[in-house]
């Protein structure tokens, strides 16, 4: 019994790392630019296809392809901000929602056209490997993904707290007008925020590739959890999104184990609702300090 619970918690934490990585991207964009990016999952999908094609054409390990998928998606993020999102920023919520939602639909369907609906998997030496610690097992590919996700989150935290650009980003997030008065160029900051957020989505894609099949709709699997994690961890709060992502992974896993395999999400959303009743603005009422 104890083994079963421990195994369920381990499984939940491992997938929670991926939820966290996707939701940190969403919460970063929302925190800084004040736009909800509904297409975040589709950028994960792009990251997966980049890794898939590098692996299948050139034999590059999906983890090594992080150094391609992250920069590529960083540039995509900067361009996205500069050419599309910037133009709808002053127009209120609806145009922003439509823009990113339309982008999501567009990307899924273009991917369907270009890559077909086929499932694409990459076989690596560690795809089916697991480390057995007594009765508990830890899948190697998922463990690597989890560790890299945590490292990237840590690096982001360091970036936001120790570099000028990072501080400028937090300043712009807290109060855009005052930040401008202090000589911060919001356009530049917003471009970097989008770039970093999409680079994280790309990283999530590359990290998923050794153990999850790529297909055009794959982003939808992760994005729902990511959005809940963003709200649960307080909108715009990066540490909050990280912790909420992990919590949701564990809640889902325990739910499947002890309530029913089609009830994992019921447990997640119950936890979500209870949290919102007690703390209406999520677990952390503010920007991480």
């Amino acid at each position, binding site marked *: 019994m104890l083994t079963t619970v421990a*195994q369920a918690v381990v499984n939940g934490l491992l997938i929670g790392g991926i939820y966290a990585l996707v939701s940190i991207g969403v919460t970063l964009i929302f925190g800084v630019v004040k736009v909800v990016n509904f297409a975040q999952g589709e950028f994960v999908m792009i990251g997966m296809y980049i890794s898939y094609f590098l692996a299948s054409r050139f034999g590059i390990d999906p983890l090594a392809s992080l150094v391609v998928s992250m920069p590529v998606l960083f540039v995509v993020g900067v361009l996205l901000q500069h050419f599309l999102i910037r133009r709808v920023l002053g127009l209120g919520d609806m145009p922003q929602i439509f823009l990113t939602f339309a982008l999501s639909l567009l990307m899924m369907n273009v991917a369907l056209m270009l890559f077909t609906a086929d499932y694409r998997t990459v076989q690596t030496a560690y795809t089916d490997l697991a480390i057995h610690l007594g009765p508990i097992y830890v899948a190697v590919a998922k463990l690597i993904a989890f560790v890299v996700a945590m490292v990237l989150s840590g690096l982001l935290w360091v970036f936001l707290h120790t570099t000028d650009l990072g501080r400028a980003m937090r300043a712009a997030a807290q109060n855009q007008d005052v930040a401008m008065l202090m000589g911060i160029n919001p356009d530049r900051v917003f471009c970097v925020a989008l770039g970093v957020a999409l680079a994280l989505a790309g990283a999530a894609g590359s990290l998923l590739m050794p153990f*999850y*099949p790529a297909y055009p709709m794959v982003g939808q699997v*992760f994005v729902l959890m990511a959005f809940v994690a963003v709200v649960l961890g307080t909108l715009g709060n990066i540490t909050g999104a990280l912790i909420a992502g992990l919590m949701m992974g564990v809640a889902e896993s325990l739910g499947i184990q002890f309530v029913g395999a089609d009830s994992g999400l019921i447990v997640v959303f119950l936890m979500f609702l209870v949290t919102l009743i007690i703390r209406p603005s999520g677990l952390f009422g503010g920007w991480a300090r």
Partner: protein
Amino acid sequence: METSRSQASAKRHGRRDFLTKSAGAVLATGIALPRHAKAADVVNIGGLYPVTGSLAQTGQACVNAAKLAVQMVNDAGGIKSLGGAKLNLIISDVQSDTTVTRTETDRLISSYKLSAIHGAYASALTLIAVEVAERAKIPLLTGSSSDQLNQGGRRYTFTPFARASQFAAAQLQMAKLVSDKPKVAVVFENTAFGTSTSNGLREQAPGLGVEIVLFEPYSAGFADASPLVNKVKASGANMLFPVSYLNDLILIVRSIKQAGLQLAINGGSGGFVLPEFYKNVGPIAEGLLGVEHWNHDTDANALKVNAEYQKLYGEFIFEYGGGLVAQTFMIADALERAASTDPQKVRDALATLDVSSGYAAMCPGGKVKFGPDGKNIYAHPVGVQWQKGDLVSVFPKEDARAPLLKA
């Protein structure tokens, strides 16, 4: 004939619809066949397949198989009683969508003078197509497995292969071969496909001496299969029947491997028996079991068809595609005996079809004769196992080409 049909449809659907339809028909005929030839030179056969949409990949493979079958019939001299008339296959894309299936079946029937139809891979789509075909009185053959296709007194629907209810029994009988005391975990995706299949398993299990220790619905499209696998592990099962779509199946099989669980797995039909499954999971598919209505190694003719298909498309011919070749030869046999392209006469000839040799009889059991409900009275499923990257028939004895390997 063609004109009066078009006029009638124009009245029904309005001018724009009429224009698109006739333009489409002209285009299609221009590409598909030498329309200037004498009427008796070709026999039109309709094929309804989901070439786009969620089932696109399998749908396209069905079309490949159907084309190969028509070419085989034509290369062998066509329909001799019709002066060597060639079969002309007209494919219609039903887009993996029930609404489109209805309109496309309608369009196909009203645009062409068809002698017979085959289609549409997925039972949900076929159930719609047969409604339209029944009304138009055009015979329709299908490899879809839903038992519903044989209910409701249909007269133009023919199902040459094993039914869904027979699949469950075969899966349970195979369990007894793998273990003396099978303790089975059934995990199934919680929509129509998963629930109906798993209920069939649960109903028949006690009668066949199989104990079900876990009966667990799950929501398809999960991010991680390991919680589900953890649950299977906790149940103490020694065998797993997943009723799943391909993506979930890949994740489940991998998670079981990672968990180090020693389980016999029988994935039934569907995505599990496609060449694509092996391509995706690789060597860990070895030893996994499945159930099919057709397999490419059950007789010499099947092997011949498989070799031809392999040459063209680089993979073995999958269950539905192979069955489709047999279906085309059943239609050819009926045309031969009817000596007419009239769908009513073709239907009557199909109803009296009785073959036990040749490509038309190429199926598990090796005989085809339709009962009044359109069911092949000899049909039974074949149990298969992934062995060295190939899908090998292992059950029942008379169809087995290799012994069933225990994990």
